[in-house]
């Protein structure tokens, strides 16, 4: 009688290599390569996960070899950066209206910021379909709030925490929602909220944020010029400066932006699209290769 569960004991009659349901070095349920050629041959070309049943014949099969299950997708229609900042009267986020299809600038009227509830707005970068799915989840939360009928609705921080859990759990399943989200809004205690969640569940809050390329171009400008008590025109001017910096250096961005904001005592709004002025009138732009022909 062979007791194949106890890996420490040598199985009875072990001159012939035997499949073991537990291998101390690799772990449970793994058939080491070379031990059972028939087993190996079955899976020589197998691309999917292997459901392995213990050698005792009973027990729930679980997948181990030949590798982790990957449902990780490739994004198809994507949005680029979202910027956000707090200011005296509330909080604002901004982004362009482009949906890129690889390197094709395909959809030019995509609204990448949406109103979640009376106190919260959200913007996304990354795959559009996953964001639409996130919006259906948030819609469910709103419906629950409505049905509870207790005069309360979820605060931006609660929505942000919920999304952190969603994103992190999807990451754990190797099936991420391919987005970085910026959640902004006003809390009951009279403070602003601004937070970001990424596709692997990383998250943080700050007075000014960006998701995507804006982290490189806009954050330094914000660090230099942002203060929490900026007035709305000042905040908007800084936001437009940051958007200008981004659009001149991000190839998957277009010069057509919206700004969404939540201000104390007012409903959230998403602005009409607008463009920012850009500077091309530099003397040195006219003949850059004058003294070095062939240079770029």
């Amino acid at each position, binding site marked *: 009688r062979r007791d194949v569960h106890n890996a420490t004991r040598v199985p009875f009659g072990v001159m012939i290599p035997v499949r073991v349901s537990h291998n101390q070095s690799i772990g449970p349920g793994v058939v080491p390569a070379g031990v059972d050629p028939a087993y190996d041959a079955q899976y020589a070309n197998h691309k999917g996960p292997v459901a392995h049943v213990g050698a005792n014949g009973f027990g729930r099969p679980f997948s181990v070899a030949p590798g982790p299950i990957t449902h990780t997708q*490739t994004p*198809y229609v994507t949005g680029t950066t979202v910027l956000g900042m707090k200011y005296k009267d509330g909080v604002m986020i901004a982004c362009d209206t482009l949906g890129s299809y690889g390197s094709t600038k395909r959809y030019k009227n*995509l609204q990448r910021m949406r109103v979640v509830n009376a106190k919260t707005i959200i913007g996304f970068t990354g795959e559009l*379909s996953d964001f*639409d799915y996130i919006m259906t989840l948030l819609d469910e939360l709103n419906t629950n709030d409505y049905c509870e009928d207790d005069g309360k609705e979820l605060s931006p921080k609660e929505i942000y925490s919920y999304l952190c859990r969603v994103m992190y759990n999807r990451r754990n399943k190797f099936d991420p929602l391919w987005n970085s989200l910026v959640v902004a809004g006003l809390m009951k205690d009279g403070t602003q909220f601004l937070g970001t969640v990424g596709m692997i569940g990383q998250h943080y809050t700050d007075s000014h944020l960006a998701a995507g390329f804006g982290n490189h171009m806009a954050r330094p400008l914000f660090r230099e010029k942002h203060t929490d008590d900026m007035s709305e025109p000042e905040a908007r001017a800084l936001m437009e400066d940051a958007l200008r910096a981004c659009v001149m250096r991000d190839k998957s961005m277009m010069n057509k932006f919206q700004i969404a904001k939540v201000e104390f005592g007012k409903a959230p709004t998403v602005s009409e699209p607008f463009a920012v002025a850009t500077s091309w009138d530099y003397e040195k732009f006219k003949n850059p290769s004058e003294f070095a022909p062939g240079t770029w």
Partner: protein
Amino acid sequence: TPLRSTCAQGYVAYTRASLQMETFDEPPKTGTTIVACVYDGGVVLGADTRVSTGIYVSNRASDKMTVLADSTVMCRSGSAADTEAVAKIVRYHVEQIGMERDSPLDVKTVAQISNQINYQNKSANHGAGLGAYMIIGGWDSNKGSQVYSCTAGGNMISTRWTTDGSGSTYIWGFMDDGFRENMTREECEAFVTAAITLAMSTDSSSGGCVRLNTVNAEGIHRKFVKPGELSPAYGELAMTARHGHVGASGGMVL
């Protein structure tokens, strides 16, 4: 050694350029050009008719547009198998839901069914998703003429016009420039036909004839434009027609 293939059949042929055996083990794709555009009172959807497996044109007169409902048509591009399967499942759901509601489905509803199939199968093909790039267009009394771009991965976006497939890359600029709101049906059909002709002249995966489906309040009207009826693109010669005729056996003899 031949490439490993996921296709059940493999075609083998010798190319002119080299005497090496080249297997056409790629699954059949609709390397294609599909276009849809709204006009005042309806939608015009158009497609070329070429299906290729590798270098071989396996079908030169295919119909890449599938009717999903009385007022909705789908143009298919990407993997031929995936789009056929999706269209089939969408038609099943459309019939079922239509029976339950005892009324025809709106264009957006049909587009959403198709889109959800794409979205819920993101893990297919090792994470690449179904290779189904579709345009769904139609007319209903609720929202009038609509075009939905349902690309792979489950992205659905409503636009006034759109194009997809391998040939679409060559006509984005042309369509950007030529689209106008409130065209007449004739103008729109001419616009779509011109766009597909241009794409076919530059894309080797697109070719053959142009099929048009015009959807308006009266229903779906089909049109088949043969190469002889299209004016030649730059660098090409006018095509003359050699008739196909039906032989005594009842089959086409071309």
